[in-house]
């Protein structure tokens, strides 16, 4: 009964808006996801598993996970450090740096891949040095790492910065006056206060790392069994008309995304509970 009265109060305009939003979301999110599941069912799980257990598929998935873990660790630590520096300190160029670290959100990953080729690729700035060191960046693992780190740079930083800004400095000042060293303040006051934001940021980082395509394709080259990640594997599989492999890998990545979404929701709930 309560629902009915509320719906009445909303009026016709709001109802139309609500339906429009639901239809739009369904068309954009649920339809393709459903189509993929349907395709997988049609292909049959047997051939799907066969394809997914093939060495190149396993290697691609493995690589995606390794890259996601590296991004989570490196950009997690960077996010905390940069968040503290940007929010807690005042220095020349702080705003510019702060704004620049959002760049990975706005530029196309393909463009980024090309830009890094100019630095590390054939005829690139660092090529002479890399040759002396016998260190290969492009079309090798380091290239994949650089591409992934770049595209996942801002997530933890943003989440941590918001929370640090909102927290203010008083707890840290109180700890300092009580005799805590900067290191003690970080571990015992700052980190516990930002841990939810950190978890949220790292989760977004992992999701983004798993989904990255353009930059890892350009910098890594998607060499089967070597620099092929989950997403580039799908691309190659489609080109080779191995549809079971493509859809299988896509489903694996989709499931991973849904799981990460659930983690994000759980983190949000923790946050709300703690705020009460």
């Amino acid at each position, binding site marked *: 009964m309560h629902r009915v009265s509320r719906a009445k109060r909303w009026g016709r305009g709001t109802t139309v808006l609500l339906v429009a939003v639901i239809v739009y979301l369904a068309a954009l999110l649920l339809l393709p996801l459903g189509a993929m599941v349907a395709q997988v069912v049609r292909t049959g799980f047997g051939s799907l598993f066969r394809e997914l257990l093939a060495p190149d598929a396993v290697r691609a998935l493995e690589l995606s996970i390794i890259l996601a873990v590296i991004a989570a660790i490196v950009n997690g630590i960077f996010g905390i450090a940069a968040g503290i520096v940007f929010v807690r300190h005042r220095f020349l160029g702080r705003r510019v740096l702060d704004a620049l670290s959002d760049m990975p959100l706005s530029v196309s990953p393909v463009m980024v891949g090309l830009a890094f080729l100019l630095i590390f690729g054939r005829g690139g700035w660092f090529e002479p040095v890399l040759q002396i060191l016998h260190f290969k960046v492009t079309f090798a693992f380091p290239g994949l790492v650089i591409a992934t780190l770049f595209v996942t740079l801002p997530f933890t930083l943003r989440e941590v910065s918001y929370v640090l800004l909102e927290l203010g400095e008083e707890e840290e*000042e*109180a700890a300092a006056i*009580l005799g805590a*060293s900067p290191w003690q303040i970080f571990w015992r006051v700052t980190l516990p*206060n930002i841990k939810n934001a950190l978890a949220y940021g790292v989760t977004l980082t992992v999701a983004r790392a798993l989904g990255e395509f353009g930059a890892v394709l350009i910098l890594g080259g998607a060499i089967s069994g070597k620099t092929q990640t989950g997403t580039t594997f799908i691309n190659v599989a489609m080109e080779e008309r191995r549809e079971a492999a493509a859809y299988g890998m896509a489903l694996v990545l989709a499931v991973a995304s849904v799981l990460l979404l659930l983690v994000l929701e759980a983190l949000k709930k923790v946050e709300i509970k703690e705020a*009460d």
Partner: protein
Amino acid sequence: MGIRVDHLTKHFGSFVAVDDVTFDIPTGELVALLGPSGGGKSTILRIIAGLERADDGSVILDDQRVDHLHPRARHVGFVFQHYALFRHMTVFQNIAFGLQVQKMPKERREERVRELLRITGLEGLDERYPDQLSGGQRQRVALARSLAPEPRLLLLDEPFGAVDAKVREELRRWLRRMHEQIHVTSIFVTHDQEEAFAVADRVMIIHRGRLEQEGSPLQVLDEPSNEFVARFVGEVNVFDSVVREGMAEIGPVRVAVKKVESETVVRLVVRCYDIRLWRAERGVATVTRVLSFGDRVKVEATIDGGQSFVANFPRRSNLLTGVEPGCRADVEITHVRAYPVALGD
């Protein structure tokens, strides 16, 4: 001994937050820094604690200059206006924090925390988190936390600003009692004069970064050293007047003024309890409003010639007989302070 602040100056950009402030506080005294908001009181406190760096001047604690010392090496306690309790720690952990980072053995630490819980009346709340406490309780946790490591100086920044009026009253009395028990040298910042007078041994009036006057509450009340202090402390009326042969005139009202030369333009500051009126048909003033505030009554009136004032009366005062808006009244000023007006002011 105690604390000495020597020619302290601090700018924020072109804004002068603290302007050449010097004072001494002997060990064990409880002093209030009183003044309007934004006057630099909190900045002085933060400089003493080491949270801000002074542009000039120094802070001397127990005969030792501490300007170069990090906050953690100064051994002061600080109570923040909004408590700044560690939100992810229990009351017990909050109070124990200072002892823990200073590596006090566990048993002595627990003993000390228990003692503070008892002194501050927080027994039984030790497992609570800050967000499960009332404002007054949080305030007491903040105080207990700052006292735990036995600071040589306790600084309180608007300590009662964030709690409601009734709790504030209680906390004030409690802080005063507490200070009588442990006698730690304390400075607290407030913009509330009643609070300053109720709690402090001595009051320092800070305005626009300057120390305008220091003294006991009574000294500041009765012998304000300048017009700002006179106007800031207590409820006052201000009249413009000119002194002629020892008398100042406010319309038809005349009042004796000492030590001011003839023909001096002055501003007269009269406390609301130093001016009286009573109903008189001829009279020199017209009553405009009568307001009751529980045990007091405020009467607003306009003296012939245009200057208005407010007079305070006890509720049952005989003088109030027949006083109502629109009636005529005679006026007597019992105590006045005159401040010569600088030209162009």
